[in-house]
């Protein structure tokens, strides 16, 4: 049985239909990369899978949990890293991660949090307000959440943006580790070259439907 199953997922914003019957099924250790034009619905699909948006039509099951009635439980098993870092500029990395772990009711000590900060290469900045961090540093700090939360499902929206070449290699190593520990990744990307180092299944989102082929789907 699939660990993640999405069936007949539809979503619209007003009269504009974005998703028209998305079907997706995944197992542990699998990575799916969503490709598609701007506005094709990649971010909407990730947001729906994060349960930030309520389902309008269709079904989404993660680890036996139905998103319609068990949204909180699904949120505790997934981490969504979107275009926004969700960081508070007035808080330091340690405080930001402490805030994150307590909101998710994770039992993490300050030492564990500092270790996660070390692992993302921000040791020197651990006690400085994150307001003045560069986009790449914010991205690294955001990814430290994955190391702490150890989720079942990781949702990433353009994770390679703002990362330099070294950062891309570093991120791919972290993601490969995550997959080898039975995690699942769904990632939206415009950059097939950067994601190439990671073992993945490419899926193409066009006209609101997912396909394994790059060509246009019939409606």
């Amino acid at each position: 049985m699939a660990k993640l199953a999405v069936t007949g997922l539809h979503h619209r914003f007003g009269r504009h239909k974005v998703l028209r019957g998305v079907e997706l099924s995944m197992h542990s250790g699998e990575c799916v990369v969503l490709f598609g034009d701007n506005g094709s619905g990649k971010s909407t699909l990730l947001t729906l899978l994060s349960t930030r948006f309520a389902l309008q039509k269709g079904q989404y099951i993660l680890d036996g949990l139905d998103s319609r009635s068990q949204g909180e439980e699904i949120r505790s098993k997934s981490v969504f890293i979107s275009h926004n870092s969700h960081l508070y500029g007035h808080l330091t990395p340690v405080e930001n991660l402490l805030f994150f772990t307590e909101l998710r009711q994770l039992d993490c000590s300050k030492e564990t949090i500092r270790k996660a900060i070390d692992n993302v290469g921000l040791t020197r900045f651990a006690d400085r307000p994150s307001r003045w961090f560069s986009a790449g540093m914010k991205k690294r700090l955001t990814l430290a959440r994955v190391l702490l939360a150890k989720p079942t499902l990781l949702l990433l929206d353009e994770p390679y943006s703002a990362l330099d070449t070294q950062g891309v290699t570093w991120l791919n190593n972290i993601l490969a580790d995550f997959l080898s520990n039975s995690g699942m990744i769904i990632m939206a990307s415009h950059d097939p070259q950067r994601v190439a180092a990671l073992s993945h299944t490419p899926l193409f989102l066009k006209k609101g439907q997912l396909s394994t082929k790059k060509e246009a789907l019939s409606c």
Partner: protein
Amino acid sequence: MLKAAYRIAWKDMVGDLRRRSSLSSMLFFSIAVLVVFQAAFEPDRQAAVKLLPGLVWATMLFTSLMGLGRVFQAEEENGAFEGLLLASVPRGIIFLGKWMGNLLLTLLVQAMILPLTMILFNVDAWHVIHHIFGVLVLGILGLTGLGVLLAAMTQAARSRETLLALLLLPLVAPLLIAGVQATAGVMEVDGQPWPWIKLLLIFDTVYLALAPWGFSWLVEE
């Protein structure tokens, strides 16, 4: 789960103290209002006693509006509100945390402003100051409860502070009337504050019972 609410309130308080945004502006605004009232009315001691309940509540209302206008300001940065909504806690807990943060801030300001008002207007009611503050606390509970809900509702609007005041003022008018009457009641020797205090308690219960539910409904997309 209450730990999550406490952590949200902690984050808001720390943010405010580090940025010195709401607390300082609420304090300065209150002091300015009191000085203007003092200069305009120049009340004698007897008139000041009669003025005090209205003055205390008017100042509290305006300063609360100022704090409520900024209650979701920190959440605008880096899409942090989305991050809050992705937490694996009920939406009501998120509301509780935001409300607690605003409540503590408003109480802190009022704890400083109330003695200052009594000094500035030369009101000899020090023996009942704890009763006056108690009544204020009851009012602040309901006002901030409803206020945080309306602040969430108007946070995306362009002129949100005006909209917030427009929505909040008619809804809290009964609470303000009850608060002013209860304060006057505790200051008078043979005053009857209890019917008004009971009314305050009813408003608090209604606002605080409905607000978390309203917030959960509001943030669902």
